[in-house]
């Protein structure tokens, strides 16, 4: 294994992606964009996991298997999240996060 | 959830509206909630033009009404004129009319079949039907000199006698037709995809059909046995033996298949007419300059699209005072808006196709 690319590069990338996702998740008004940003964050996590897999446990495949589970969970999460948004927007004429301050609908 | 409704224009320039017909659809998702048909893009003012034409000159214009069944349109007009003038048409002429009229009916039904096949996406069926229609076109061209707009009939008879070789050709075609129909049945009618698309789509009940004054194959597809050729025979139809095919469900498939069945019946009639074809004159004695007495007449024939009625008012001059056509497609189309409600866009095309409209006739 060469020394050209070490995990730091990937972790740096993943951190940047995570930060961007975090920024999006916090600063967006539209719920869907918040969801998208969360996807970005999950993606960042995946990069991390796969990087660890490659550099730390290449034969145990822990990282990759975890990544697969995360992808599964993310898919389920997006599906449910979007369904929720659709359900909400059906009742309230909004998809602006700040307007969703009621507890009951 | 309340989905936003979407307005969609089907037509005027649209590949499957059979011309320049326009329907404004209000869609909810893909389901039609409201339909608003806008005809009139081909309104040529024929009825008005005809007021300035002499009686024989009216004839070529009738061709341009239902241009898929020009001869039948001719026939409707000459029928009305003969009623107005009390003319007796010679036997031979009547027989020729029947032969040509039924050939034209087959041609028209072939186009309907073809167009319907094309509408649901089967382009090969389209071409096959047109291929066989060419034979009829040849025959029509042979007798009249034009393929689509023959202007062949004349008040009191027909323009010219059947040319040499016509009878053999016609006989040959009649013998060939069953093979062709079998082919259509194999390719189009029997196809499961086609059946799934058309069966149980937009059924019209018999009662509704009568109330909406539908006529022709659309009416009979709903199970109403009303064919002018049987119900009130005009010309010499009472001498022929034929059945009136009837549908049972009145859905798109029945409307389509009925036309295929009617082709066979028409072939039967032609065969009998060919056998019985008498010799004799082909024209009644009509004055050179036609000047009917003051009066009016209304006559109907069963055209390929339904009942074609012609109403002529004469003021005693050489030109009609008023001519009005009862155009079957136009009246059948009256039920369209209501019928397509609740069906999907794809069905709209199938339903419109099963109506077999001709815009020349709808817009007149």
């Amino acid at each position: 294994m060469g020394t050209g690319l070490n995990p730091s590069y990937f972790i740096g990338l993943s951190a940047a992606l995570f930060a961007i996702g975090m920024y999006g998740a916090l600063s967006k008004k539209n719920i869907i964009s918040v969801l998208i940003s969360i996807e970005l964050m999950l993606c960042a996590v995946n990069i991390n996991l796969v990087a660890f897999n490659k550099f730390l446990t290449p034969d145990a495949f822990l990282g990759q298997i975890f990544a697969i589970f995360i992808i599964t969970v993310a898919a389920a999460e997006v599906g449910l999240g979007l369904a929720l948004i659709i359900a909400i927007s059906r009742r309230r004429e909004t998809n602006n996060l700040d307007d969703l301050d009621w507890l009951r609908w | 959830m309340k989905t936003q409704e979407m307005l969609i224009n089907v037509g005027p320039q649209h590949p499957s509206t059979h011309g320049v017909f326009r329907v404004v659809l209000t869609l909810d998702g893909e389901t039609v909630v409201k339909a608003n048909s806008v005809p009139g893009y081909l309104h040529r003012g024929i009825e008005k033009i005809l007021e300035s034409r002499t009686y024989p000159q009216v004839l070529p214009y009738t061709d341009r009404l239902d241009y898929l069944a020009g001869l039948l349109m001719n026939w409707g007009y000459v029928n009305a004129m003969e009623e107005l003038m009390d003319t007796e048409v010679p036997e031979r002429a009547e027989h020729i009319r029947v032969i040509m009229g039924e050939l034209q009916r087959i041609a028209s039904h072939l186009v309907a079949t073809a167009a319907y096949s094309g509408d649901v996406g089967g382009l090969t069926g389209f071409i096959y039907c047109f291929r066989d229609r060419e034979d009829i076109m040849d025959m029509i061209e042979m007798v009249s000199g034009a393929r689509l707009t023959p202007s062949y009939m004349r008040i009191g008879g027909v323009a010219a006698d059947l040319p040499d070789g016509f009878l053999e050709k016609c006989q040959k075609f009649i013998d060939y037709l069953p093979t062709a129909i079998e082919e259509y049945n194999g390719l189009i009618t029997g196809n499961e995809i086609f059946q799934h698309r058309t069966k149980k789509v937009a059924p019209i009940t018999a009662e509704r059909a009568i109330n909406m004054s539908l006529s022709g194959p659309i009416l009979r597809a709903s199970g109403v046995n009303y064919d002018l050729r049987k119900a009130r025979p005009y010309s010499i139809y009472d001498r022929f033996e034929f059945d009136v095919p009837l549908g049972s469900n009145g859905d798109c498939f029945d409307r389509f298949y009925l036309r295929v069945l009617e082709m066979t019946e028409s072939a039967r009639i032609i065969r009998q007419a060919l056998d019985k074809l008498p010799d004799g004159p082909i024209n009644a004695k009509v004055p050179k300059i036609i000047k009917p007495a003051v009066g009016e007449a209304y006559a109907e024939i069963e055209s390929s699209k339904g009942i074609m009625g012609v109403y002529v008012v004469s003021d005693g001059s050489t030109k009609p005072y008023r001519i009005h056509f009862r155009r079957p497609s136009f009246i059948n189309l009256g039920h369209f808006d209501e019928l397509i409600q609740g069906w999907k866009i794809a069905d709209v095309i199938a339903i419109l196709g099963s109506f077999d409209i001709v815009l020349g006739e709808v817009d007149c």
Partner: protein
Amino acid sequence: MSEWVGVALFIVAGLAFGIVGIGVSFLVHPRSKNRYKLETYECGIPAEGSAWGRFRTQYFTFALIFVIFDVEVIYLFPWAVSFVQLGLAGLIKMFIFIFILVLGLWYAWKEGALEWK
């Protein structure tokens, strides 16, 4: 690694192909302006209403079911590849897995989510 460089090359080339095609066309094609050319086409009459209608949920429903099954397939492929190695145990585990998902499909079917409205 280098094999992936090849894939990248192919992708870039596919893109370049498109760009060159459109670019050449832009150079040689004639152009003119008139009243209606840039208007939205709507069967030859002025466009009515907006194209931005909202749609029925069916589109979303199908996409959702697709994603779920897509994810299922992720598991199926590795299983299929090492089927021999996994033997009966693997077979049974996978059948349970698929069975649970088929339950979901069955539910969707029953709920009418598979109908296109």
